[in-house]
């Protein structure tokens, strides 16, 4: 197990380094940062002055090296717009996003996995149909629309929940449902397919022949094997939720990191965008790494590969 983890860790670091380089260089491809910073009315001299001030006149690799070295120490520079350290800015906004993302994926997993299991135990039953309907509806409904419907019903009509903001835990209920429901259908269908497949396998018959009860057969013998692809999917979904919850964050006026990314792109706030891309990519890398480790623990065959 340990050699496997070390190998995957090395691989993850390599990917992280590559991603950091890409995220750094991408922004140089989007135009002259000094000109963007100076604004439309600035003279050529002003732009040149800014270029020297921010060091844009140096070779790109030198700038990258400097940026990466600072980033490793948690220093992402200063936001052009807020005039504040980017690290603090992101850390503050990330809290909301993290809470939302963790709640969202938990909501998705806690509804999708049991539903998928039940649907697989009784294929084509009423509960299977209901689960299928729920997942089709979830896949078909745009998040912003579903969010608005929830606000109309639960905040405006019934007055049960606050419509927007992030002040209390009650503010997070609707965003969690919207974000989680977006990830739920794929997880549910994958759980169902995996369980159906595993329940037909020979080792399940062996477990029954041992005299194991249904619960033991389902959860100890079947689910452990069926859940493996779900783990990989959930890791990607989790990364997506942390980086891509922009729509949900704006519908519910939760000022999280996704919202900050959108704002910063609109404002040409280069250091913030760079840092956010890096942070979001790191989430993906960390979650896929964790998923790989978890899967290797679940399935011993993966440890040797």
């Amino acid at each position, binding site marked *: 197990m340990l050699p496997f983890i070390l190998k995957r860790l090395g691989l993850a670091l390599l990917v992280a380094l590559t991603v950091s380089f890409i995220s750094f260089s991408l922004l140089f491809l989007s135009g002259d940062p000094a000109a963007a910073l100076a604004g439309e009315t600035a003279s050529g001299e002003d732009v040149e002055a800014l270029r020297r001030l921010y060091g844009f006149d140096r070779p790109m690799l030198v700038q990258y090296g400097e940026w990466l070295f600072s980033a490793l120490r948690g220093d992402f520079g200063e936001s052009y717009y807020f005039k504040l350290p980017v690290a603090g800015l992101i850390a503050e906004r990330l809290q909301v996003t993290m809470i939302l993302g963790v709640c969202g994926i938990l909501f998705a997993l806690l509804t999708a996995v049991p539903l998928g299991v039940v649907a697989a135990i009784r294929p084509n039953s009423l509960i299977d149909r209901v689960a299928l309907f729920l997942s089709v509806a979830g896949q078909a409904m745009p998040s912003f629309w579903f969010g608005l419907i929830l606000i109309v019903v639960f905040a405006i009509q019934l007055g049960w929940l606050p419509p927007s903001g992030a002040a209390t835990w009650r503010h997070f209920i609707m965003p969690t449902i919207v974000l989680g429901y977006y990830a739920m259908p794929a997880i549910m269908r994958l759980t169902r397919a995996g369980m159906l497949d595993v329940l037909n396998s020979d080792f399940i018959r062996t477990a029954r022949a041992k005299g194991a009860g249904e619960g033991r057969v389902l959860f100890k013998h079947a689910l452990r094997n069926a859940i493996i692809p779900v783990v990989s999917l959930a890791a990607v979904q989790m990364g997506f939720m942390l980086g891509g919850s922009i729509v949900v964050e704006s519908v519910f006026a939760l000022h999280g990191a996704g919202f900050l990314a959108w704002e910063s792109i609109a404002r040409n706030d280069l250091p913030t965008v760079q840092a956010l891309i890096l942070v979001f990519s790191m989430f993906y890398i960390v979650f896929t790494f964790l998923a790989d480790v978890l899967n290797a623990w679940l399935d011993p*065959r993966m440890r040797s590969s």
Partner: protein
Amino acid sequence: MTDALLSVKNLTLSIPTGSGTLHAVRGIDFDLKRGETLSIVGESGSGKSLTSLAVMGLLSKTIKCQADEMRFDTIDLQKANRRVMRDLRGNRMAMIFQEPMTSLNPAYTIGDQLTETLLLHRKVSKAAARARAVELLEKVGITAAESRLSQYPHQLSGGLRQRVMIALALMCEPDLLIADEPTTALDVTIQAQILRLLVDLTREMNMAMILITHDLGVVARVADKVAVMYAGGLVETGPAAEVFSAPSHPHTRGLLRCIPQPGKTERGAPLGTIPGIVPSLIGDVSGCVFRTRCAHASADCRGPIPLRGDDSHAFKCVHADGALSAEGELA
């Protein structure tokens, strides 16, 4: 026979399909005493495996199972509830399957899977269960048994995995062992070893064994009794020695003729086959199902088929001698 460990009378298994009911097993009888080995022989799809799964109570819910009697020791298997069946399975009756490569759970160690059976049925400590697992792994001829416990199925060869499956089946010292084509997926050199092992172990533990196979060579070596199945019905039953020396049903003779014999079968000569294919068992099935492939079929074969012979060696055929006289001596 009242001293039988397992007694099955008129077992019928039907599977509803889109185009009508599939009569997979139709009215078969057999019984088995402690220490006895019954071999159920037949072609693929003749209902052998379904019959054994019915005894274990492992049939899929879509299959309808009926019988005049299905009794294990003093327990009526038809009336037994799920809890009783669960207590029997793995404990007093155990099964070995055809596919050693896929019959073990890939996610757990050999040790986990072996001890699970014992821990499910007996109040023993984990350490005691492990000790028992080591003992049995040694018994089934696995070297370095202790270290195997921490290995996973994918680290073992097919032959080793089948040995593990046998050890698994024996964890609770069952009274009845059902081996469903235990050697089919293994290569020939391993086949003989596994078979030898099964025979020795059943003797040593005084177990009853149902050995399901399509390989008559296997039967001849190990079985006390033989039941020949064809397309869901029993065509001939009897003591192994008698069935082999005096096969009465044309199908049994057909099967025997398919085995090439060293010295007797001419080199380069075509191997024996039974012409034709198994008939569809969907819808009403009447008369002798073998008639479509039998050289001696007559109009009478469509009607009711009498059971001939005596209590120990019986066969079902319209011909009084099973048409043996019409065939001459068996080659």
